[in-house]
């Protein structure tokens, strides 16, 4: 028996992602994948999924779904205030960082994402064919509309059958704060030492031009050594690379960026800092700090350790006797409860 998420409203900025597509960049195919692999891993872990199981990645306005065909266990991580509308009409607010059971006929309204990215994981993952080894959305590779990155209303997304789930929760994984760490180069020789020092001291702000391909920054323009140094013969680029075109304003490349590019790169964000960078929103202020590669690897390892500790803190919780708002407002104003279960703080 198959369970589906039917897209009632696609929202905006929502795609299907997993760890990405490796081994195809030489053909001009972007890696793609989770902008914040850590919060995606958390959503998956709350359901007992493998950490890189495909999730729906939400930016801007999350989708509205209807559960069709059976029971679905889901978990959301991120700054989203989701709601479930039960088939009887009762509404329940859905806390992120908790796994939840949805019944056939329930509607899941994800709502606006308050900055950054949020993840919706389903237990067992999605029952969809991989394209070139991955489920990461890519408009150039075909597949159904969510696989092309443009989910349509009416789309039925097949979910794997889940076996009995325990309800689990954990405190949100807090990303570190502070400067974004970078490794200088590869085209640092296109800039004077003074220019690089000012790049590392500068405060940049995240503009509205922020997509899965990259993030444009506003701030004091960075000067190239000469105007001719504003271009290079195209070479390999990667997520995290910071390109500086002729106007001097940095562009930080992200998961869906192209594979080769003709602007000089002053520095590259370290892998460990890409997840928290993706959680920034337009208007945020960013600063960069240079580190050596070895330090970058140490930072990555200690973040991996911190995630392992977080996984160990996942604990079960009891579903509260939830307050049926419809009944409360319509009926029983005296005692105000429809179910008599002991009430756990729903927060």
């Amino acid at each position, binding site marked *: 028996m198959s369970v589906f998420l039917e897209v009632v409203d696609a929202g905006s900025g929502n795609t299907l992602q997993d760890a990405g597509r490796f081994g195809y960049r030489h053909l001009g195919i972007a890696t793609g994948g989770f902008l914040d692999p850590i919060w995606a891993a958390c959503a998956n872990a709350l359901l007992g999924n493998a950490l890189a199981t495909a999730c729906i990645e939400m930016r801007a306005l999350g989708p509205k779904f209807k559960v069709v065909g059976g029971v679905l266990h889901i978990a959301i991580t991120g700054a989203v205030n989701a709601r479930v509308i039960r088939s009887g009409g009762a509404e329940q607010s859905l806390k992120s960082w908790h796994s939840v059971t949805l019944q056939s006929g329930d509607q899941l309204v994800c709502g606006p994402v308050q900055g950054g990215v949020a993840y919706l994981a389903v237990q067992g993952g999605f029952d969809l064919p991989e394209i070139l080894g991955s489920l990461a959305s890519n408009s150039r590779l075909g597949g159904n509309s969510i696989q092309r990155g443009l989910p349509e209303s009416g789309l039925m997304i097949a979910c794997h059958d889940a076996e009995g789930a325990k309800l689990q929760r954990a405190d949100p994984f807090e990303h570190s704060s502070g400067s974004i760490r970078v490794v200088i180069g590869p085209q640092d020789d296109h800039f004077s030492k003074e220019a690089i020092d000012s790049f590392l001291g500068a405060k940049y702000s995240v503009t509205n031009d922020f997509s899965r391909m990259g993030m444009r920054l506003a701030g004091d323009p960075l000067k190239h050594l000469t105007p001719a140094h504003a271009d290079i013969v195209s070479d390999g680029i990667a997520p995290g690379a910071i390109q500086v075109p002729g106007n001097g304003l940095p562009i930080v490349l992200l998961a869906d960026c192209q594979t080769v590019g003709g602007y000089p*790169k002053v520095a590259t964000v370290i892998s460990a800092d890409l997840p928290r960078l993706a959680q920034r929103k337009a208007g945020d202020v960013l600063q960069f700090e240079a580190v050596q590669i070895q330090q970058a690897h140490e930072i990555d390892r200690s973040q991996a350790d911190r995630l392992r500790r977080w996984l160990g803190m996942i604990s079960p919780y009891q579903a509260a006797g939830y307050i049926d708002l419809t009944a409360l407002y319509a009926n029983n104003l005296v005692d105000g409860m429809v179910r008599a279960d002991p009430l756990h703080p729903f927060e």
Partner: protein
Amino acid sequence: MGEVQLLALGDAAWTVQFGTLIDEATHARVMGFVAKLHVAMQADAPGWSLVRDVVPSFRSVSVLFDPLHEKAPGLGKVLMELAADVQSQRLAGRNWLLPACFDSEFALDLGDVAKRHEMQPKDVISALCDATFRVYVLGFMPGFPYMGGLPQKLETPRLANPRKVVPPKSIAIAGQMCAVYPDSSPGGWNLLGRCPIPFFDVRADPPALLAPGDTVNWYEIDRVSCLEMEARLASGELLTEKFLQTSEGLQ
């Protein structure tokens, strides 16, 4: 010939750089290094399991890898050892003879390019078909080939106003290069014609028609032949292998 340099592209990628300009000699070293790297990776797959992508470009190769892998700290040194005595591979790939249709419906910029160079359109077509192009790199979009070898008399800058939509399969030129748009896309190159062969098909293995190191010669076909070829390629009746050249000519 430049010294090979190892450049850090963050903590999860190295760029092995053979030069800073586009020229056949540098690209031959790029292809030689890629070949050597693939041999090493095949000979010891577990030892190379940290490598996720090997991306050649005009004058360098970027190697993307898992920064948490135990072999990550030593990878740069290993790559430089491999790069040290690279054998240039000039003729690394396959030779293609590909059909090109220059019908006015497809050759949207042929008139302008001809006028700019004070040539007749038919002479632009001849010059294009006389040239042998070399695939330097695939990038920009899946399967898009940057090919060098455009005759100097045809060198044309990109459009001042890029198109919002370039039709799929468009043959295009810009600067000193020739390319084909595998699919519709925004684009600023000058459109000269259409090639009926799919340049990218996700179901094919490999999904891209061309690879760096391949060479391409164009031959002119008319509109009717172009549409017929597209249909026969789509149905599987005509295979892309048919367009591979041997030294004796078309197979």
